């Protein structure tokens, strides 16, 4: 277990948007979706040491040593030019951390925490690590009061869920779209696994929140909202739906030409869901 290392983009000891209460959030690097609307696209790829970022760094915090990128965090001034230079939406600034490294961070911040959330990227791409981490948290007498949550796109097979769910307290699952063609256009992947995952997780009693990213003229259409409503009702009226609103913050490329989602349009969808009997519909507190 000691040799197991996660590739971590970032760790937050304060987050109020990644599950119930204040949470320690581990953003794992790498994603199996490629969404144009992604608000942290630099977490999608995994570094292949091509070296394009080295020249972009104006404080020489990056260098090539034996064909590998070496990053010096102390020199870095967080200008993020390397992220822009990266051709594969990866980051040269990732850390490699062990389970015990993360337990140590959790211990130090314990009084402030309700739990731990693994996010990404797509957290389940590092499934072995996530399972090891959650298992260790639950076995640790100081930390077993912390709940373990996964923030996921759900693109994970049934067998893997069987391994993950026993050590997981809650799942926040994103559905990007219901129409298969639209889903493919918005993620580059098929939606079958995600939709099935929602049912598996819900049946296990661990679906904390179903998330739906509303994008004008794409996923806010009557047809999509109707399918979301039917899907949620089929799971049960007690399912918590979190409507996210597409904004430009963090987004790159083509999607910057898309319109931002307005508060009034989100409210309309929320009202529709509530009228259909979904009791818990959460809308964004903030529109950027």
């Amino acid at each position, binding site marked *: 277990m000691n040799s197991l290392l996660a590739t971590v983009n970032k760790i937050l000891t304060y987050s*109020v948007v990644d599950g119930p*209460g*204040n949470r320690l959030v581990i953003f794992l690097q790498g994603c199996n979706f490629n969404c144009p609307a992604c608000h942290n696209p630099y977490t999608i790829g995994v570094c292949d040491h091509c070296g394009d970022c080295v020249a972009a760094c104006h404080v020489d915090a990056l260098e090539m040593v034996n064909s590998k990128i070496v990053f010096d965090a102390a020199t870095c001034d967080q200008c993020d030019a390397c992220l822009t230079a990266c051709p594969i939406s990866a980051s040269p600034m990732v850390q490699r951390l062990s389970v015990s490294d993360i337990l140590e961070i959790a211990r130090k911040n314990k009084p*402030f925490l*309700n739990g731990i959330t693994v996010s990404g990227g797509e957290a389940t791409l590092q499934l072995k690590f996530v399972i090891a981490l959650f298992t260790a948290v639950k076995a640790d007498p100081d930390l077993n009061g912390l709940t373990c949550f996964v923030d996921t796109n759900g693109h994970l097979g049934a067998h893997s869920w069987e391994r993950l769910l026993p050590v997981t307290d809650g799942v926040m699952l994103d559905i990007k779209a219901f129409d298969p063609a639209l889903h493919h256009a918005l993620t580059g992947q098929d939606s079958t696994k995600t939709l099935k995952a929602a049912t598996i997780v819900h049946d296990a009693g661990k679906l904390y929140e179903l998330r739906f990213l509303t994008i004008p003229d794409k996923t806010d259409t009557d047809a999509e909202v109707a399918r979301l409503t039917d899907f949620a009702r089929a799971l049960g009226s007690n399912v918590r739906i979190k409507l996210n609103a597409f904004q430009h913050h963090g987004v790159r490329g083509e999607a910057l030409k898309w319109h931002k989602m307005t508060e009034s349009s989100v409210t309309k969808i929320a009202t529709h869901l509530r009228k259909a009997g979904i009791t818990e519909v959460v809308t*964004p*507190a*903030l529109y950027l």
Partner: protein
Amino acid sequence: MQKSLETLRNITDDKTLNPTQKARYLSLEAENMLPYPDLDAETAEALEQRVICDMFEGHAPYKPRYVLPDYSVVLSNGSAYLELPAPETLAEAINTLMIAYHHVPSVTGIPVYIGQLDDLLLPFCDGVSDDDLYRKIKLFWRYLDRVLPDAFMHANIGPTDNRVARTILRVDAELKQIAPNLTFLYDPEVSSEQILAIATNNIIECSKPHIANHPMHAKLFDQRGYGIVSCYNVLPMAGGASTLTRVNLKEVALRADNVEHFFTEMLPHYMELNFRLTEARVDYLFNKSNFFTSFLIEEGWIERDRFTVMYGIYAMAEAVNILQEKENREGLYGFDDVANEIGYRMSKEMAKIVKNRPLENVWRGYAMLHSQAGISIDEGATPGVRIPYGTEPDPVSHVQALAPHHQYYTSGISEILTVDETIKNNPKAMLQLCKGALESGFREFTANVASNDLVRVTGYMVRLSDIAKFKECKGSRTNTTALASEAADVTGILDRKPRVVGNELSAGYGQ
């Protein structure tokens, strides 16, 4: 003399002040025409240069800065002086308090402490319906905000979970008034989780109340206890604080050659001068002003020997950064371990100096150290030991950086954690943040939610909508303070002073 008259004339003719506000500024100007209590030359010079500061309390301290009456005295006995019988019903009790408040002096003339309201009112609540209690508290709350419009007026509730505390929290969230300021005393052994959650939900609603670390405060005081008053001062019940003086650590650091020179010579030197300033003011109050002949003493609302003095310090952030520069180091206060260590050392050293300097006519013979939250003229000087506004790290790192200071500041220390509004969808996080801060050794937990109209400025509340025009121009916390409480040339864009202000913040007319 001519200049003084001109100032008086400016006050009487001021467009923005109401008559009560004019009367207050006129009285301050009159007091300040008197000579200052005798100071030695060195102390006078340090005061003149504002290395040490008397908070512009006035030249002739004829009343203590903060008075914390034991209101249970008037509720049990009535008052011979005020010709009041002892109240028997809830309505009579509230009425008695409303009268009492008008006879409690303070540095601003408005009471800074209006009592441990649940303890005071609970004995009158038997047989009172929930609805009746709610209506009476609501009227009481409205009265306080409209008649005693000062954001430093402070009510206390807790640590028990009781009807009066719950009703007050309900009304406070509903009315979202600036006054009164409110603290819930939290004791994990006594308070229910539920009432703490109500209190932290209120913070999300209206940035009030403060949550005080009751066990940490209570152990410093005796059976009669303590009260939390004004913007975060913790003082003996049935007494208070005669004066608050403060040392500007930034100015001290500027006069030091390096870190060691600061600690071995400059800090002890200026701290001693500030003790002398304190002594001169206390001497005037106790030996010349005749304050302690008041009926408040005679009837036992307060006792002469229960008045402490608050020994304030501020601008630690600037002081540490200046010393870091003198040592050719870059790390900033609040972020860098070496810089933070210098800060912790300052707090520890100052607490030691205060503990070893006896003072006459002071409760228990020694001052109480205080992390002072600033007044309107403080430019380029961050309140207390805080991290400069706008540069703070996330709330958890923020608490972790400042928690080691809290043990030393016995008469009060406050940090304002600014939390973004996404917390509105996740109130549990506010509850946990509060518990985490108190468990880490914070004496009190205070938070602002970024989008709330009612926000805290240094320690008192303002309504953003009152000062919206100003916000468009600048929007900085200190300037907002100046605007909310200060005079016409700064606030030309407002047609009048806000009705509810923070008088303590003012350094005088035109400041």
